[in-house]
C-alpha cells in the first residue's frame, strides 16, 4: 500500500456529473476512511450508482476529482481501477450469465493471471499450474460465501439472491482494497439479508476491504456501516456515523419531506 495509508482510502472532491443537461451529481465531496464500511443512502435517482460508476471509471466526472489511495484522477479506465484494487458489484445483475458460478468467479481473477494465450491454447505447464492456483482461490471464496452447492451451475438459472452472492464472490476473489457494492441486498428476504450482511462484515473485517455500499434498508445500514453518506438529487445532505445521520434534521427534511 502506498505512503498515504494513513489518510482516507477514497476521497471525492467536488465531483459533478450530468446526463444530457440533467445534473446527476452536484459538487459532491466526502471521504471514506481506510477499513470502514461506508453506506450511501438516498432516494432512487439520487445519483448513488452514478457515483460508484465514477469511482471505478465507468463514467467520467464532468468536474472534480477522485483520490484513491493517494492518487488523484478525474477519469480512470475501469480496467485500471480494477488493477489498482477497486472491486465492484452491480445493482442490476451483471453476471456473465452463460457461465457457471465457478467460471464467473474465475473471471474475477483474470487480472491475476500471468499466462498467455499460447499457454492456454496448448495447456502448457505454467498454465496448468496457474489454473490450479487460481481455481483454489476461487473455490475458497465459493466455499466461504456458501455457494458450493451451486458451483457448477450456469448463473442465469440461479435464484436472484444467490446471483447477488455470486456477484460478491466475483468481486471479492480479486482481493480488492476497496469494494463498491451497489444494492447487494436488493430483492432479498430477511434471512438472505442477514447472511449477506455477515459476508460483507467478514469481507471488511477478515479480508480487510474497505466497503462502500448502496443500500435502502435502513435497518441493515445502521447495523452494518460505520459511516453513512446521504445523497439527495445529486447533493450530499448528510455525512456521519449512523447515529449522527439518523438525527440530522437536514436528512430528516430531505427524506421525510412533508410526508410525515
Amino acid at each position: 500500500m502506498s505512503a498515504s495509508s494513513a489518510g482516507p482510502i477514497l476521497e471525492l472532491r467536488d465531483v459533478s456529473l450530468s446526463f444530457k443537461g440533467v445534473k446527476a451529481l452536484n459538487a459532491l465531496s466526502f471521504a471514506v476512511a481506510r477499513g470502514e464500511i461506508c453506506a450511501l443512502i438516498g432516494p432512487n435517482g439520487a445519483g448513488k450508482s452514478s457515483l460508484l460508476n465514477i469511482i471505478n471509471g465507468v463514467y467520467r466526472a464532468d468536474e472534480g476529482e477522485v483520490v484513491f489511495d493517494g492518487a488523484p484522477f478525474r477519469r480512470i479506465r475501469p480496467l485500471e481501477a480494477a488493477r489498482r484494487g477497486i472491486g465492484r458489484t452491480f445493482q442490476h445483475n451483471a453476471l456473465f450469465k452463460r457461465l457457471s458460478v465457478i467460471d464467473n468467479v474465475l473471471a474475477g481473477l483474470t487480472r491475476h493471471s500471468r499466462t498467455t494465450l499460447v499457454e492456454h491454447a496448448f495447456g502448457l505447464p505454467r498454465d496448468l499450474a496457474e489454473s490450479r492456483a487460481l481455481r483454489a482461490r476461487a473455490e475458497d471464496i465459493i466455499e466461504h460465501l456458501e455457494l458450493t452447492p451451486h458451483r457448477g451451475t450456469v448463473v442465469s438459472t440461479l435464484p436472484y439472491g444467490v446471483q447477488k452472492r455470486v456477484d460478491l464472490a466475483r468481486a471479492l476473489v480479486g482481493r480488492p482494497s476497496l469494494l463498491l457494492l451497489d444494492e447487494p441486498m436488493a430483492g432479498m428476504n430477511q434471512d438472505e439479508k442477514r447472511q449477506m450482511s455477515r459476508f460483507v462484515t467478514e469481507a471488511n473485517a477478515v479480508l480487510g476491504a474497505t466497503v462502500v455500499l448502496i443500500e435502502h434498508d435502513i435497518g441493515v445500514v445502521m447495523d452494518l456501516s460505520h459511516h453513512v453518506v446521504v445523497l439527495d438529487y445529486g447533493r450530499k445532505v448528510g455525512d456521519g456515523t449512523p447515529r449522527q445521520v439518523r438525527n440530522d434534521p437536514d436528512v430528516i427534511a430531505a427524506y421525510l419531506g412533508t410526508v410525515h
Partner: protein
Amino acid sequence: MAFLIETLIGGLLSGVMYALVAIGFVLIYKASGVFNFAQGAMVLCAALTFVTLRDQGLAFWFAALVTLAIMVVLAIAVERVVLRPLMNQSQITLFMATLGLSFVIEGMSQLVMGASVHELDLGIVDTPVEVGPILVSQFDLVAAAAAGILVLALSVFFNVTRIGISLRAIADDPQAALSIGIRLQRLWRIVWGVAGFVALVAGLLWGSRQGVQFSLTFVVLKALPVLIIGGFTSIAGAIVGGLIVGAADALAEIYVGPLLGGSVSTWFVYVLAVAFLLIRPAGLFGERAIERV
C-alpha cells in the same frame, strides 16, 4: 470542374436511389428491432410481381395496386409465421431468420413468376439534359423526385397519422406502447406492409434502371453503408447517408480508383462508413444509449 460537379450530381442522384432501399430497412428496424435482410428479396418480389402483371396486360395503376396487396399479404404472413414465434429472441437470431426468409421469398417469386429478365418501362424518358456544361440524367431526376416524395409522404405519415405516431412510440419503447393499448403485432404488420410499399417503389425504379431480375436483391449491399452512416433508426439519416454514399462512391471511383488501379466502389463506401462509425458509433442520426450498470 464541370466534370467534378457532374460526377457529384450523378453520385448524389444515385445516392437517393440507395436511400430508397435503406428506408425500407429503417422502417422495419425502428418498429420491430429486426434488421431485415429480406428487404432485397422484397424489392425483387415487388418488381417481379409488378412486371408479370404488366406482361399480363394489366394497367399500370391496377398492377401497382395488386402488387401492393400482395406485399401486404406477405407482410401479414411474415408477422404471423416468422416474427411472432421469434418474439423476444436476440436480434441476431431475427436477422438470420430474415436471411432464411429471403431464400423463401426469392424462391417463391421465381417459382411463380420465373427467372427470366424483364424489361420494366415506366415511360420515363432517359435522354440526358444539359445544364450548361453539365449533363444530368432525366431518369435520375425523376427517380430522385419520386424518392423525395416518398420520404415526404413517410414523414407526414409518421408525424401526423395515428398509425405513424404509434409506430414512433413503439420504436421508442415497445412495452410502454403495449401498456397503453397499442397493438404491437398489428402495427408490425402495417410497418412491414409499408416496407413492402417502399420495396415496390424501389423495385420499380431500380427495375427500370437495370431490368427486373434476380440481381435486384443486390441493391441491399449498397444500402448497408447508407444505414451505417445514417443510423439504423432515422429516415432523415437514410437520406443524408444515401447522399453521402452516392457522392463518395462516384467521386472515389473517378479520383481514387485510378490511383489504386481498379474499381473501388465495392469497398470504398464501407471503409468510409467505418470511419464514420469510429467518430459517431451510432451513425449520424442514431441515438446512442447510455449504458446503465
